[in-house]
Protein backbone atom coordinates (compact mmCIF):
# COMPACT_ATOMS: atom_id res chain seq x y z
CA UNK A 1 0.00 0.00 0.00
CA UNK A 2 1.21 3.50 -0.54
CA UNK A 3 0.46 7.00 0.65
CA UNK A 4 1.61 10.38 -0.51
CA UNK A 5 1.81 13.34 1.84
CA UNK A 6 1.75 16.67 0.12
CA UNK A 7 4.01 19.56 1.03
CA UNK A 8 1.08 21.46 2.46
CA UNK A 9 -2.63 21.01 2.68
CA UNK A 10 -4.55 17.90 3.63
CA UNK A 11 -5.53 14.96 1.45
CA UNK A 12 -4.85 15.70 -2.19
CA UNK A 13 -6.93 13.74 -4.69
CA UNK A 14 -4.45 14.54 -7.47
CA UNK A 15 -1.92 12.25 -5.91
CA UNK A 16 -4.25 9.26 -6.13
CA UNK A 17 -2.79 8.36 -9.51
CA UNK A 18 0.74 8.73 -8.18
CA UNK A 19 -0.05 6.42 -5.28
CA UNK A 20 -1.30 3.83 -7.72
CA UNK A 21 1.85 4.32 -9.79
CA UNK A 22 4.11 3.68 -6.79
CA UNK A 23 2.11 0.57 -5.90
CA UNK A 24 2.33 -0.80 -9.43
CA UNK A 25 6.10 -0.38 -9.57
CA UNK A 26 6.49 -1.94 -6.13
CA UNK A 27 4.42 -4.95 -7.17
CA UNK A 28 6.52 -5.45 -10.28
CA UNK A 29 9.88 -5.01 -8.61
CA UNK A 30 9.72 -6.35 -5.05
CA UNK A 31 10.03 -10.11 -4.66
CA UNK A 32 6.99 -10.42 -2.44
CA UNK A 33 7.32 -14.21 -2.28
CA UNK A 34 10.31 -13.66 0.00
CA UNK A 35 8.07 -11.96 2.54
CA UNK A 36 4.79 -13.85 2.80
CA UNK A 37 2.01 -12.53 5.02
CA UNK A 38 3.76 -9.18 5.16
CA UNK A 39 2.47 -5.74 4.27
CA UNK A 40 4.93 -3.28 2.83
CA UNK A 41 3.85 0.32 3.22
CA UNK A 42 5.44 3.07 1.17
CA UNK A 43 4.96 6.68 2.26
CA UNK A 44 6.20 9.54 0.13
CA UNK A 45 6.53 12.89 1.87
CA UNK A 46 6.93 15.75 -0.55
CA UNK A 47 9.37 18.29 0.83
CA UNK A 48 9.24 20.69 -2.07
CA UNK A 49 7.92 20.49 -5.58
CA UNK A 50 9.24 22.00 -8.79
CA UNK A 51 8.17 19.69 -11.61
CA UNK A 52 8.99 16.07 -12.52
CA UNK A 53 7.29 14.99 -9.31
CA UNK A 54 6.37 11.43 -10.26
CA UNK A 55 9.84 10.70 -11.64
CA UNK A 56 11.54 12.00 -8.52
CA UNK A 57 9.15 9.97 -6.36
CA UNK A 58 9.98 6.80 -8.25
CA UNK A 59 13.71 7.38 -7.98
CA UNK A 60 13.36 8.03 -4.26
CA UNK A 61 11.32 4.83 -4.05
CA UNK A 62 14.10 2.81 -5.66
CA UNK A 63 16.72 4.18 -3.30
CA UNK A 64 14.45 3.67 -0.31
CA UNK A 65 13.81 0.03 -1.28
CA UNK A 66 17.55 -0.52 -1.60
CA UNK A 67 18.17 1.18 1.73
CA UNK A 68 15.52 -1.03 3.32
CA UNK A 69 17.26 -4.08 1.91
CA UNK A 70 14.08 -5.44 0.33
CA UNK A 71 14.76 -8.05 -2.34
CA UNK A 72 14.18 -6.48 -5.75
CA UNK A 73 14.07 -7.91 -9.27
CA UNK A 74 16.05 -4.94 -10.60
CA UNK A 75 16.91 -1.35 -9.84
CA UNK A 76 14.86 1.18 -11.71
CA UNK A 77 15.23 4.78 -12.70
CA UNK A 78 12.54 7.23 -13.78
CA UNK A 79 12.91 10.01 -16.32
CA UNK A 80 10.53 12.83 -16.97
CA UNK A 81 10.02 14.77 -20.17
CA UNK A 82 7.59 17.34 -21.51
CA UNK A 83 6.58 18.22 -25.03
CA UNK A 84 6.51 21.97 -25.54
CA UNK A 85 4.54 24.08 -28.02
CA UNK A 86 6.82 23.50 -31.04
CA UNK A 87 6.97 19.72 -30.45
CA UNK A 88 10.35 20.19 -28.77
CA UNK A 89 11.20 17.89 -25.88
CA UNK A 90 12.44 19.21 -22.55
CA UNK A 91 13.91 16.65 -20.19
CA UNK A 92 13.60 16.90 -16.42
CA UNK A 93 11.17 19.82 -16.58
CA UNK A 94 10.54 22.45 -13.92
CA UNK A 95 7.04 23.44 -12.85
CA UNK A 96 7.03 26.38 -15.30
CA UNK A 97 7.94 24.11 -18.19
CA UNK A 98 5.25 21.64 -17.13
CA UNK A 99 2.63 24.39 -17.13
CA UNK A 100 3.54 25.30 -20.72
CA UNK A 101 3.69 21.70 -21.84
CA UNK A 102 1.30 20.12 -24.32
CA UNK A 103 2.23 16.63 -23.14
CA UNK A 104 4.04 15.10 -20.16
CA UNK A 105 5.87 11.78 -20.07
CA UNK A 106 7.19 9.83 -17.11
CA UNK A 107 8.97 6.58 -17.97
CA UNK A 108 10.64 4.13 -15.61
CA UNK A 109 13.40 1.87 -16.91
CA UNK A 110 14.76 -1.16 -15.13
CA UNK A 111 18.49 -1.75 -15.14
CA UNK A 112 18.88 -5.36 -16.30
CA UNK A 113 17.52 -5.22 -19.84
CA UNK A 114 16.66 -1.51 -19.96
CA UNK A 115 13.01 -2.24 -20.60
CA UNK A 116 10.44 0.37 -19.77
CA UNK A 117 8.44 -1.00 -16.87
CA UNK A 118 6.18 1.96 -16.28
CA UNK A 119 4.85 4.69 -18.50
CA UNK A 120 2.56 7.59 -17.69
CA UNK A 121 1.82 9.95 -20.52
CA UNK A 122 -0.86 12.64 -20.61
CA UNK A 123 -1.60 15.40 -23.09
CA UNK A 124 -1.75 15.54 -26.88
CA UNK A 125 1.06 13.82 -28.65
CA UNK A 126 1.69 11.31 -31.41
CA UNK A 127 2.76 7.69 -31.30
CA UNK A 128 6.02 8.57 -33.11
CA UNK A 129 6.87 11.18 -30.49
CA UNK A 130 6.21 8.68 -27.75
CA UNK A 131 8.51 6.09 -29.36
CA UNK A 132 11.22 8.77 -29.67
CA UNK A 133 10.86 9.67 -25.99
CA UNK A 134 11.04 5.98 -25.06
CA UNK A 135 14.35 5.57 -26.91
CA UNK A 136 15.99 8.82 -25.81
CA UNK A 137 14.84 8.31 -22.25
CA UNK A 138 17.23 5.39 -21.86
CA UNK A 139 20.24 7.70 -22.13
CA UNK A 140 18.83 9.97 -19.47
CA UNK A 141 18.10 6.93 -17.28
CA UNK A 142 21.78 5.96 -17.59
CA UNK A 143 22.70 9.21 -15.85
CA UNK A 144 20.28 8.40 -13.02
CA UNK A 145 21.74 4.90 -12.65
CA UNK A 146 25.28 6.29 -12.48
CA UNK A 147 24.08 8.75 -9.82
CA UNK A 148 22.71 5.79 -7.82
CA UNK A 149 26.10 4.15 -8.10
CA UNK A 150 27.96 7.27 -6.96
CA UNK A 151 25.61 7.77 -4.00
CA UNK A 152 26.01 4.22 -2.81
CA UNK A 153 29.76 4.31 -3.26
CA UNK A 154 29.94 7.45 -1.10
CA UNK A 155 27.72 5.82 1.50
CA UNK A 156 29.63 2.56 1.64
CA UNK A 157 33.03 4.23 1.64
CA UNK A 158 32.44 5.12 5.30
CA UNK A 159 32.04 1.46 6.18
CA UNK A 160 35.33 -0.40 6.68
CA UNK A 161 33.83 -3.67 5.45
CA UNK A 162 33.26 -2.24 1.98
CA UNK A 163 36.34 -0.09 1.62
CA UNK A 164 38.29 -3.07 0.30
CA UNK A 165 35.76 -3.65 -2.48
CA UNK A 166 35.48 -0.11 -3.74
CA UNK A 167 37.99 1.35 -6.22
CA UNK A 168 40.56 3.62 -4.52
CA UNK A 169 40.19 7.39 -4.90
CA UNK A 170 43.14 8.76 -6.83
CA UNK A 171 44.00 12.25 -5.63
CA UNK A 172 44.81 14.67 -8.47
CA UNK A 173 48.43 15.80 -8.67
CA UNK A 174 49.00 19.25 -7.27
CA UNK A 175 50.09 21.58 -10.05
CA UNK A 176 52.65 24.16 -8.91
CA UNK A 177 51.74 27.70 -10.08
CA UNK A 178 54.38 29.14 -12.38
Amino acid at each position, binding site marked *: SSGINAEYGGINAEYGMYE*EALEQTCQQIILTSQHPRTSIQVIAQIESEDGSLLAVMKNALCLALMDAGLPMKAMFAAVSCVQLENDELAWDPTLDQEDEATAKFTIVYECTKNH*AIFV*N*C*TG*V*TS*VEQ*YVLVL*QKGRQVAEEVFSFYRESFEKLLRRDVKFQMLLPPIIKDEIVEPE
Partner: protein
Amino acid sequence: MADDFRYAQPKQYQRLFLKDDIRPDGRPVTGCREVKIHCNTVSSALGSAMVCFGNTRVIAGIKGRFAEPTINNPSSGYIIPNVSLPGLCNTKYRPGMPVDKAISISHKLESISTDVTDLMELCIVPGKVVWCLYLDVVCINDDGNVLDAAVLAMTAALFNTWLPTTHINEETGLVTVVPGGEKTKMILKFLPVTVTLSVFDDVTLPDPCESEEQIEAGTVTCCVDENSKMRAMWASADLPDDMMAAALLYIQKRASVLLSVLRKVSQRDTP
Protein backbone atom coordinates in the same frame (compact mmCIF):
# COMPACT_ATOMS: atom_id res chain seq x y z
CA MET B 1 -11.99 -31.43 -13.77
CA ALA B 2 -10.98 -28.50 -15.95
CA ASP B 3 -12.51 -26.08 -13.45
CA ASP B 4 -10.46 -27.56 -10.62
CA PHE B 5 -7.28 -27.11 -12.62
CA ARG B 6 -8.25 -23.57 -13.54
CA TYR B 7 -8.87 -22.73 -9.90
CA ALA B 8 -5.70 -24.38 -8.63
CA GLN B 9 -3.26 -23.26 -11.32
CA PRO B 10 -4.74 -20.35 -13.28
CA LYS B 11 -1.48 -19.37 -14.99
CA GLN B 12 -0.73 -22.89 -16.21
CA TYR B 13 -4.32 -23.13 -17.45
CA GLN B 14 -3.83 -19.96 -19.49
CA ARG B 15 -0.48 -21.18 -20.84
CA LEU B 16 -1.98 -24.42 -22.14
CA PHE B 17 -4.42 -22.41 -24.26
CA LEU B 18 -1.83 -19.91 -25.45
CA LYS B 19 0.35 -22.75 -26.71
CA ASP B 20 -2.35 -23.36 -29.36
CA ASP B 21 -2.72 -19.62 -30.06
CA ILE B 22 -6.10 -19.43 -28.45
CA ARG B 23 -7.53 -17.93 -25.27
CA PRO B 24 -9.73 -19.77 -22.73
CA ASP B 25 -12.90 -18.09 -23.98
CA GLY B 26 -12.23 -19.25 -27.56
CA ARG B 27 -10.86 -16.02 -28.97
CA PRO B 28 -7.65 -15.90 -31.00
CA VAL B 29 -4.75 -14.34 -29.12
CA THR B 30 -5.26 -10.94 -30.79
CA GLY B 31 -9.05 -11.12 -30.77
CA CYS B 32 -11.36 -8.76 -28.95
CA ARG B 33 -14.87 -9.35 -27.72
CA GLU B 34 -17.88 -8.07 -29.58
CA VAL B 35 -18.63 -4.41 -28.90
CA LYS B 36 -22.20 -3.16 -28.54
CA ILE B 37 -23.07 0.46 -27.89
CA HIS B 38 -26.58 1.67 -27.09
CA CYS B 39 -27.05 5.41 -26.88
CA ASN B 40 -29.67 7.36 -24.93
CA THR B 41 -30.44 4.48 -22.59
CA VAL B 42 -31.20 6.78 -19.65
CA SER B 43 -34.04 9.09 -20.68
CA SER B 44 -33.74 11.36 -17.64
CA ALA B 45 -30.10 12.19 -18.40
CA LEU B 46 -28.83 14.86 -20.78
CA GLY B 47 -26.85 12.17 -22.53
CA SER B 48 -26.15 8.52 -21.85
CA ALA B 49 -24.79 5.37 -23.33
CA MET B 50 -24.36 1.73 -22.47
CA VAL B 51 -21.35 -0.15 -23.74
CA CYS B 52 -20.97 -3.93 -23.75
CA PHE B 53 -17.64 -5.66 -24.34
CA GLY B 54 -18.84 -9.26 -24.31
CA ASN B 55 -20.20 -9.63 -20.78
CA THR B 56 -18.69 -6.42 -19.42
CA ARG B 57 -21.38 -3.78 -19.28
CA VAL B 58 -20.93 -0.16 -18.37
CA ILE B 59 -23.48 2.66 -18.40
CA ALA B 60 -22.46 6.32 -18.52
CA GLY B 61 -24.88 9.16 -17.94
CA ILE B 62 -24.52 12.91 -17.99
CA LYS B 63 -26.53 14.84 -15.47
CA GLY B 64 -26.41 18.62 -15.66
CA ARG B 65 -26.62 20.95 -12.74
CA PHE B 66 -26.21 24.70 -12.39
CA ALA B 67 -23.20 25.63 -10.36
CA GLU B 68 -20.90 28.49 -9.52
CA PRO B 69 -17.73 28.54 -11.56
CA THR B 70 -14.33 28.26 -9.92
CA ILE B 71 -12.41 31.43 -9.17
CA ASN B 72 -9.64 30.51 -11.62
CA ASN B 73 -12.00 29.92 -14.54
CA PRO B 74 -15.06 32.13 -14.15
CA SER B 75 -16.37 31.47 -17.67
CA SER B 76 -15.93 27.72 -17.81
CA GLY B 77 -18.23 24.92 -16.84
CA TYR B 78 -16.85 21.61 -15.67
CA ILE B 79 -17.26 17.89 -16.10
CA ILE B 80 -16.97 15.71 -12.99
CA PRO B 81 -16.47 12.02 -13.77
CA ASN B 82 -17.33 9.45 -11.13
CA VAL B 83 -16.98 5.74 -11.64
CA SER B 84 -18.71 3.25 -9.43
CA LEU B 85 -18.13 -0.46 -9.34
CA PRO B 86 -21.01 -1.61 -7.16
CA GLY B 87 -21.33 -5.02 -5.57
CA LEU B 88 -23.74 -6.16 -8.27
CA CYS B 89 -21.12 -6.09 -11.02
CA ASN B 90 -18.77 -8.61 -9.49
CA THR B 91 -18.65 -10.61 -6.25
CA LYS B 92 -15.20 -9.28 -5.42
CA TYR B 93 -16.59 -5.78 -4.76
CA ARG B 94 -18.17 -5.11 -1.39
CA PRO B 95 -20.55 -2.24 -0.66
CA GLY B 96 -18.99 0.77 1.02
CA MET B 97 -16.13 3.05 0.01
CA PRO B 98 -15.32 3.19 -3.70
CA VAL B 99 -12.91 0.46 -4.69
CA ASP B 100 -9.34 1.42 -5.67
CA LYS B 101 -10.08 0.34 -9.21
CA ALA B 102 -13.06 2.70 -9.42
CA ILE B 103 -10.97 5.61 -8.13
CA SER B 104 -8.22 4.77 -10.60
CA ILE B 105 -10.64 4.71 -13.55
CA SER B 106 -12.17 8.00 -12.35
CA HIS B 107 -8.75 9.63 -12.37
CA LYS B 108 -8.10 8.36 -15.88
CA LEU B 109 -11.47 9.59 -17.14
CA GLU B 110 -10.71 12.95 -15.58
CA SER B 111 -7.40 13.30 -17.36
CA ILE B 112 -8.99 12.36 -20.69
CA SER B 113 -12.11 14.49 -20.30
CA THR B 114 -10.49 17.77 -19.28
CA ASP B 115 -9.96 18.86 -22.88
CA VAL B 116 -12.67 16.92 -24.65
CA THR B 117 -15.06 19.81 -25.00
CA ASP B 118 -14.76 23.57 -24.96
CA LEU B 119 -15.71 24.27 -21.36
CA MET B 120 -16.48 27.91 -22.22
CA GLU B 121 -19.55 26.59 -24.10
CA LEU B 122 -20.86 25.39 -20.76
CA CYS B 123 -20.96 28.91 -19.38
CA ILE B 124 -24.40 30.42 -18.79
CA VAL B 125 -23.71 33.65 -16.89
CA PRO B 126 -19.96 34.36 -16.68
CA GLY B 127 -18.78 34.45 -13.11
CA LYS B 128 -22.15 33.37 -11.74
CA VAL B 129 -23.74 30.29 -13.29
CA VAL B 130 -22.22 27.53 -15.37
CA TRP B 131 -23.18 24.01 -16.32
CA CYS B 132 -21.65 21.40 -14.09
CA LEU B 133 -21.92 18.05 -15.86
CA TYR B 134 -21.79 15.00 -13.64
CA LEU B 135 -20.48 12.13 -15.71
CA ASP B 136 -21.61 9.08 -13.76
CA VAL B 137 -20.23 5.81 -14.97
CA VAL B 138 -21.71 2.70 -13.43
CA CYS B 139 -20.48 -0.78 -14.16
CA ILE B 140 -23.32 -3.27 -14.36
CA ASN B 141 -21.17 -6.31 -15.00
CA ASP B 142 -17.41 -6.54 -14.61
CA ASP B 143 -15.96 -9.23 -16.84
CA GLY B 144 -12.64 -7.48 -17.39
CA ASN B 145 -11.54 -4.35 -19.22
CA VAL B 146 -13.89 -1.96 -17.45
CA LEU B 147 -11.57 0.95 -18.26
CA ASP B 148 -12.04 0.67 -22.02
CA ALA B 149 -15.78 0.23 -21.67
CA ALA B 150 -15.97 3.21 -19.32
CA VAL B 151 -14.05 5.49 -21.67
CA LEU B 152 -16.10 4.41 -24.67
CA ALA B 153 -19.31 4.90 -22.68
CA MET B 154 -18.10 8.35 -21.60
CA THR B 155 -17.34 9.35 -25.19
CA ALA B 156 -20.63 7.96 -26.48
CA ALA B 157 -22.58 9.71 -23.72
CA LEU B 158 -20.86 13.04 -24.33
CA PHE B 159 -21.30 12.63 -28.08
CA ASN B 160 -25.04 12.24 -27.56
CA THR B 161 -25.49 14.98 -24.99
CA TRP B 162 -28.00 17.69 -25.72
CA LEU B 163 -27.90 20.74 -23.48
CA PRO B 164 -31.29 22.37 -22.87
CA THR B 165 -31.71 26.12 -23.33
CA THR B 166 -31.75 28.13 -20.16
CA HIS B 167 -33.77 31.15 -19.20
CA ILE B 168 -32.41 33.82 -16.92
CA ASN B 169 -35.04 35.64 -14.89
CA GLU B 170 -33.94 39.28 -15.09
CA GLU B 171 -35.52 40.27 -11.79
CA THR B 172 -34.39 37.45 -9.55
CA GLY B 173 -31.33 36.36 -11.53
CA LEU B 174 -32.56 32.78 -11.25
CA VAL B 175 -31.58 30.42 -14.03
CA THR B 176 -34.08 27.79 -15.10
CA VAL B 177 -34.35 25.28 -17.87
CA VAL B 178 -36.94 26.12 -20.51
CA PRO B 179 -39.26 23.11 -20.54
CA GLY B 180 -39.77 21.79 -24.05
CA GLY B 181 -37.29 24.33 -25.35
CA GLU B 182 -34.68 23.89 -28.06
CA LYS B 183 -31.67 21.75 -27.26
CA THR B 184 -28.12 22.22 -28.49
CA LYS B 185 -25.88 19.27 -29.16
CA MET B 186 -22.65 19.30 -27.22
CA ILE B 187 -19.64 19.64 -29.48
CA LEU B 188 -16.66 17.46 -28.75
CA LYS B 189 -13.18 18.55 -29.84
CA PHE B 190 -12.08 14.97 -30.29
CA LEU B 191 -13.38 11.45 -29.62
CA PRO B 192 -11.18 9.58 -27.18
CA VAL B 193 -11.14 5.80 -26.97
CA THR B 194 -8.79 3.60 -24.99
CA VAL B 195 -7.46 0.18 -25.84
CA THR B 196 -6.06 -2.01 -23.09
CA LEU B 197 -3.72 -4.93 -23.56
CA SER B 198 -2.88 -7.28 -20.76
CA VAL B 199 0.68 -8.58 -20.62
CA PHE B 200 1.13 -12.21 -19.68
CA ASP B 201 4.33 -14.19 -20.16
CA ASP B 202 5.72 -12.19 -23.15
CA VAL B 203 2.35 -12.13 -24.89
CA THR B 204 0.04 -9.16 -25.12
CA LEU B 205 -3.65 -10.02 -24.93
CA PRO B 206 -6.05 -7.29 -25.99
CA ASP B 207 -9.36 -6.77 -24.17
CA PRO B 208 -8.67 -9.07 -21.21
CA CYS B 209 -11.58 -10.80 -19.53
CA GLU B 210 -11.79 -11.03 -15.76
CA SER B 211 -9.90 -14.30 -15.32
CA GLU B 212 -7.09 -12.95 -17.50
CA GLU B 213 -6.93 -9.74 -15.46
CA GLN B 214 -6.36 -11.74 -12.29
CA ILE B 215 -3.21 -13.40 -13.64
CA GLU B 216 -1.72 -10.66 -15.78
CA ALA B 217 1.80 -9.38 -15.23
CA GLY B 218 0.88 -5.87 -16.27
CA THR B 219 -1.23 -3.75 -18.59
CA VAL B 220 -0.70 -1.31 -21.41
CA THR B 221 -3.49 1.20 -21.98
CA CYS B 222 -3.36 3.83 -24.66
CA CYS B 223 -5.93 6.51 -25.39
CA VAL B 224 -6.12 7.70 -28.99
CA ASP B 225 -8.56 9.95 -30.80
CA GLU B 226 -10.05 9.83 -34.30
CA ASN B 227 -6.98 11.61 -35.77
CA SER B 228 -4.61 9.00 -34.34
CA LYS B 229 -3.25 11.47 -31.82
CA MET B 230 -2.20 9.88 -28.55
CA ARG B 231 -4.08 11.45 -25.65
CA ALA B 232 -2.75 9.33 -22.82
CA MET B 233 -0.68 6.25 -22.19
CA TRP B 234 -0.51 4.20 -19.02
CA ALA B 235 1.68 1.15 -18.95
CA SER B 236 2.83 -0.87 -15.97
CA ALA B 237 4.39 -3.84 -17.66
CA ASP B 238 7.87 -5.03 -18.53
CA LEU B 239 7.68 -4.59 -22.29
CA PRO B 240 10.61 -4.62 -24.71
CA ASP B 241 10.55 -1.94 -27.41
CA ASP B 242 9.50 -4.19 -30.29
CA MET B 243 6.52 -5.52 -28.38
CA MET B 244 5.58 -1.99 -27.42
CA ALA B 245 5.71 -0.91 -31.07
CA ALA B 246 3.55 -3.88 -32.15
CA ALA B 247 1.12 -3.09 -29.35
CA LEU B 248 0.83 0.53 -30.47
CA LEU B 249 0.06 -0.54 -34.04
CA TYR B 250 -2.64 -2.88 -32.79
CA ILE B 251 -4.06 -0.17 -30.55
CA GLN B 252 -4.47 2.25 -33.43
CA LYS B 253 -6.30 -0.34 -35.54
CA ARG B 254 -8.57 -1.34 -32.69
CA ALA B 255 -9.30 2.31 -31.85
CA SER B 256 -10.53 2.98 -35.38
CA VAL B 257 -12.82 -0.07 -35.14
CA LEU B 258 -14.30 1.24 -31.88
CA LEU B 259 -14.79 4.71 -33.32
CA SER B 260 -16.57 3.38 -36.40
CA VAL B 261 -18.99 1.45 -34.18
CA LEU B 262 -19.55 4.62 -32.14
CA ARG B 263 -20.24 6.72 -35.20
CA LYS B 264 -22.67 4.18 -36.67
CA VAL B 265 -24.71 4.17 -33.49
CA SER B 266 -24.78 7.92 -32.93
CA GLN B 267 -26.11 9.07 -36.25
CA ARG B 268 -29.02 11.06 -34.88
CA ASP B 269 -29.03 14.78 -35.49
CA THR B 270 -32.04 15.55 -33.33
CA PRO B 271 -32.38 15.10 -29.57
